[in-house]
């Protein structure tokens, strides 16, 4: 059965994030319109990497269940990690956890164990900074993801298939990305094809996200239909996760969020990176 491979330290899976870093990502986003899309997306990604690190933490350290790559696309297309990880494509969650770019400290209310809350200084790791410049070379970014994943699958032929999560706020301006996406999702391990999930974040506040659509005809425009076509159908486990979060899903639902606000984008990342079969 596809998408059932065990995820372990000797057989990790990978997540590859494609992050739009075009100029329009500097626009304000969300209800209060005080924070840019680029800043919010970087913060969400950092939070997600923090969550994955915590999920893999055991007494002896962080177990390397996941290998992570982040490709940014805007003025340039390339590795969005900076510092010591810039020269590597996929980085083990174990290495990421032990070497964040920096740790910031924030005061946070945490449970005191007796039903109350206490203020505590909590360390927040940062790996990715916000960037927003130039156009949206999504085709080049997807092609780069294809090259990186071909290499990764060569080393991990029996892994749980890699997941690509693409976060963008606009149309590609370097061509039609569908053929690049089809090539990307034709890559496969013995456990199934590469999964590609897309979220198109909204430029307008107050818009309602379209989530997990199961057909393209009723989507509002050609661009939405294009992104729908690029997105993978949910695996049974993902369907279960999405239904568990009260999303309406069918067997034809694809992993695509359109006109997503910050809350929907966080859910997109959360559900998209859930895994069963961790050992």
């Amino acid at each position, binding site marked *: 059965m596809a998408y059932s491979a065990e995820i372990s330290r*000797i057989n990790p899976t990978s997540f590859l994030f494609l992050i739009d870093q075009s100029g329009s990502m500097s626009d304000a986003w969300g209800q209060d319109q005080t924070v840019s899309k680029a800043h919010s997306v970087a913060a969400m990604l950092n939070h997600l990497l923090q969550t994955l690190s915590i999920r893999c*933490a055991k007494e002896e350290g*962080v177990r390397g269940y996941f290998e992570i790559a982040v490709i940014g696309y805007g003025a340039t297309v390339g590795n969005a990690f900076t510092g010591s990880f810039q020269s590597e494509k996929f980085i083990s969650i174990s290495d990421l956890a*032990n070497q964040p770019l920096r740790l910031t400290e924030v005061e946070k209310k945490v449970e005191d164990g007796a039903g109350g809350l206490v203020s505590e200084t909590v360390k927040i790791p940062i790996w990715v900074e916000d960037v927003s410049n130039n156009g949206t070379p999504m085709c080049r970014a997807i092609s780069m993801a294809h090259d990186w994943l071909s290499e990764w699958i060569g080393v991990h032929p029996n892994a749980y298939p890699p997941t690509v999560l693409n976060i963008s706020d606009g149309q590609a301006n370097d061509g039609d990305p569908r053929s690049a996406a089809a090539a990307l999702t034709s890559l496969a391990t013995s456990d199934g094809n590469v999964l590609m999930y897309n979220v198109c974040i909204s430029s307008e506040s107050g818009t309602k996200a379209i989530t997990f659509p199961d057909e393209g005809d009723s989507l509002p425009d050609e661009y939405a239909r294009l992104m729908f076509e690029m997105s993978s159908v949910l695996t049974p486990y993902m369907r279960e996760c999405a239904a568990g979060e009260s999303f309406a899903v069918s067997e034809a639902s694809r992993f695509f969020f359109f006109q997503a606000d910050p809350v929907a984008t966080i859910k997109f990342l959360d559900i998209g990176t859930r895994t069963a079969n961790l*050992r």
Partner: protein
Amino acid sequence: MASHQVHFVGLVVAKKGNQPDECDDHIGQSPNTPFRAVVADGATEGLLNGRWAEAIVRRCTAESSPDSPSSMLQALEEARTAWVDEVAAYRKDRERTNRPIQWYEEPGLRTGSFSTLLYLTVDGRRPWVLAKRKVKRKRLHQSQGTHWWACAVGDSCLFVVTKEGKRRRFGDHPVVFPITASVDFNSSPHLVSTRVAPSPGAVQELSGDARTGDCMYLMTDAIACWTLRQIESRETPWSRLDEGLRSKERFRRMVDELREDHGMRNDDVSVVRVDF
């Protein structure tokens, strides 16, 4: 000593690919009166879950033995209180050995540790019959014999196999507790936490009377699921399990075979057999 004869055999094997000290399952027994057997399965994700499972086993086999839902809740409360000191000692030891707690460990230590619990006590007395109705109660009516009481939080399972049922090759459906169908196993069972008391609905109990020749198996989820699937297919898993329980090596070999050829999930595996 108990007037009845009870014999315990139990083995544990870690997930394939993990070191034995990374196993989060723990088993234990107290051969003194009243006889007790315990299985606890620490959660896969999170910190110190194996240690918490071990602490639960230790408490449940300590001198004062739970024999009712309320005394089990009290025992778990005592284990939680002792756990605060255990975590403090762990933190101190990490500092002393120059391995301070890292940022990614703090949330797990704050959230606490989690484990299932399956507990069996065997005694001729019946002090639990009038126990508080704080927990979901099930009673099993059998003929008079050696009385036993079991209590569970989560998906570690008890199989009650009669002497006659064990002899039969096909068709016998033993009493299974608390999960009764293989499809009901999932990745989010109820768990005993170091932070809060189990909700009353999470604690289940079962009691009955056993006769000479009967036996009970206590198992953690992966092998319990396989066993239930066997029973549902009208197969009898007992001789295979008994053969595996003859030695550590045979047990490891049996678990490897079940994983490779019979679709058993790769998980820590514990089996305890109690013979009457």
